[in-house]
């Protein structure tokens, strides 16, 4: 059988049910094999859309996403999704076509050293040099992408090798990766120490990140939090790992987190990080971050331990099993004084009462952007998969949309890729066809991959797009206003395109909303409309995201 036919068998053996991609010269053999392989393929309009769709699929389902691209420009177009998947620990396997082996290194037509270009952006990559390497590469790629700290893996296949007849006696099932053995089980002694530290802490905080989502540790995190009555704050990527409406939830922390969450971190005596990495958007000024705290750091990636903040009790391994063991250890402790946290909770409730998230609503019918997110939450009952793009709308969504369950919040967190939202929503909808999938975007972000509306329309992928339209690159404008003397340089987007007509041009339904009084009802109607729907919502043009830890400042100096 041809190597590419073996490739299809291997993909099926890995449980692949859908591929996002776009064919070209160098992966013609791959697409020929795909023709009757019995795997669904979503033909995107740009490879970046394919990569982000595979990410959205992976984030919404927990499975490994797959993206195909051809050589040269096809491959360079997926560099952004690859880096995005790397930053957010998202399991995606990218299969690229490559020019014939005899053309390699000759600047052949559509030749790109994709392995070289993507080297700093991948968890690992395979340059296929012999067709017999392919089955093993596929199995190992899926293993590497989905285990340990998940991430992107690239497999580059020269077009002559993919057409070669090879003997194939079934997919490879063993691994030959002597240098890759992620630690899964946490050290029992460290876990016991962590339990003791939690039991004796007076001002503890659980700080939960995307790693808890990747590990599927929601039940365990909740159990730990409720068992010890610990306050919980989530990172942008961690939202949903602990229910946002839970009374112990402090909301998101960091640059645009709640004051309560940030103040709690600032005054905590013990911070237990679960699958979070102390990013600069969390810590603010590092020297003044959580000055009184000791740190328990649970992470699958040893390189995250003590990278930014020194861990007093590091525990390397899978968050799900570690937190489960931590719960057991904590439960087994004698004489834990539950009342020791009374003062801490009083302090926290004080902040919550004094500093709730707030904004000044408009007097008339004008829609404030925060109101739009609240209306969307009301219209959906919080029961939907929500992807966003990057910028103000994203931060407001993180603040005002309460996520009670994981994998409903589809984000480009680390890389912050504008243009991520629509294709990611598309991938999420493919993975979870029975759920309502909404993409909340900005008028700037949506235009970066709006060609994927055509993919949604063609493939019947029923995504609802809500555009928070302020006619600005809003977050950049906010920074120019606050830190650059209001010199608005190149942030005014004007009034084009007409998003209603854009929706109609793709056979969908377009709506423009401007009145806050009927907003919830209008959104409900829009979301209930079958097929592709684009809702263009005019919001207050110059509104800022608050509260905010100004760049280089400490959490206690939050403004707004």
């Amino acid at each position: 059988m041809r190597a590419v036919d073996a490739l299809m068998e291997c993909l099926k053996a890995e449980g692949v049910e859908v591929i996002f991609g776009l064919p070209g010269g160098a992966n013609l053999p791959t697409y020929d094999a795909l023709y009757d392989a019995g795997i669904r393929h979503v033909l995107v309009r740009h490879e970046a859309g394919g990569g982000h769709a595979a990410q959205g699929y992976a984030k919404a389902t927990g499975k490994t996403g797959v993206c195909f691209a051809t050589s040269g420009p096809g491959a360079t177009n997926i560099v952004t999704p690859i880096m995005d998947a790397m930053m957010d620990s998202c399991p995606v396997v990218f299969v690229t076509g490559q020019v014939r082996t005899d053309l390699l290194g000759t600047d052949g037509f559509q030749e790109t050293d994709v392995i070289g270009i993507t080297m700093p952006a991948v968890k690992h990559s395979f340059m296929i040099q012999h067709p017999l390497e392919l089955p093993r590469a596929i199995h190992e790629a899926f293993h590497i992408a989905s285990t340990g700290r998940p991430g992107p893996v690239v497999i580059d296949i020269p077009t002559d090798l993919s057409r070669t007849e090879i003997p194939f006696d079934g997919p490879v099932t063993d691994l030959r990766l002597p240098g890759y053995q992620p630690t899964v089980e946490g050290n029992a002694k460290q876990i016991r120490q962590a339990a003791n530290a939690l039991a004796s802490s007076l001002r503890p905080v659980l700080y939960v990140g995307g790693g808890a989502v990747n590990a599927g540790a929601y039940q365990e995190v909740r159990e730990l939090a409720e068992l010890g009555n610990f306050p919980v704050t989530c990172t942008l990527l961690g939202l949903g790992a602990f229910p946002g409406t839970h009374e112990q939830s402090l909301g998101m922390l960091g640059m645009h987190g709640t004051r309560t969450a940030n103040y709690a971190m600032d005054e905590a005596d013990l911070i237990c990080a679960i699958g979070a990495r102390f990013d600069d958007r969390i810590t603010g000024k590092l020297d003044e971050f959580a000055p009184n705290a000791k740190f328990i750091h649970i992470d699958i990636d040893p390189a995250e331990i003590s990278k930014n903040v020194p861990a007093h009790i590091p525990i390397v391994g899978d968050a799900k099993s570690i937190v489960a063991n931590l719960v057991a250890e904590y439960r087994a402790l004698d004489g834990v004084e539950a009342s020791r946290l009374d003062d801490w909770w009083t302090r926290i409730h004080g902040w919550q009462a004094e500093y709730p998230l707030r904004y000044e609503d408009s007097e008339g019918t004008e829609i404030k952007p925060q109101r739009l997110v609240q209306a969307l939450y009301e219209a959906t009952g919080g029961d939907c998969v929500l992807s966003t793009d990057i910028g103000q709308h994203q931060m407001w969504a993180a603040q005002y949309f309460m996520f009670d369950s994981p994998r409903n919040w589809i984000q480009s967190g680390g890389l912050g890729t504008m243009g991520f939202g629509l294709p990611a929503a598309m991938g999420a909808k493919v993975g979870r066809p029975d759920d309502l999938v909404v993409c909340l975007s900005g008028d700037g972000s949506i235009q970066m991959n709006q060609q994927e509306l055509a993919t949604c329309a063609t493939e019947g992928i029923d995504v609802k797009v809500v555009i928070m339209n302020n006619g600005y690159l809003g977050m950049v404008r906010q920074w120019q206003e606050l830190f650059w003397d209001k010199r608005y340089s190149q942030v005014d987007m004007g009034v084009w395109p007409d998003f209603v007509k854009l929706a109609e041009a793709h056979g969908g339904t377009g709506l423009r909303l401007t009145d806050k009084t009927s907003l919830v009802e209008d959104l409900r109607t829009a979301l209930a409309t079958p097929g592709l729907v684009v809702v263009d919502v005019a919001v207050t043009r110059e509104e800022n995201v608050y509260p905010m830890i100004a760049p280089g400042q400490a959490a206690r100096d939050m403004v707004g």
Partner: protein
Amino acid sequence: MGDPGTKELLSLDELEATARLRTGRKHLLSVLVENKPGVLARVAGLFARRGFNIETLTVGPTDDEQFSRMTITVDGAMHPIDQVTKQLHKLVNVLKIRDLEPGFTIVRELAMFKVAAEGTSRSEVMQIGEIFRAKVVDVTKRSIVFEITGTADKIDAFERMVRPFGLIETMRTGEIAINRGRSET
């Protein structure tokens, strides 16, 4: 240090990275890697993209043809060694990393020096060579090539001694190292 998003001006002093988790000494990392194409590029790329500077790097085969040995020296005053080794560990093709303890390690570097040696200076240069146990491996009327092994410090010292005679060319391999005693490196 100022955030990139703000207009706060930075001074050159502030640009100098803050010293955190730095050991202040030279580190010798012995790294066992899979003998596969592209592995050196992955290691080198990792150093490059995190701003780590490799002082020396040697690569050679091991007694098992599946694996190669890299010996890397890194300045611990410039870089957090802990992060360097942890990041190296994340590379799928890297099996083992040892940050070798200076007291328990035998370190050697090979160097060749081409020194100008005419007339009266000739015997003087040869004498210095003898003191350092450097071997003469090539002689012409106007030059001598010495071969010398030792620690980097010894080779530095030799270089300082012969430089005044006219150093035409130097070639150094970078250090390799092995653990003392029975235990494996």
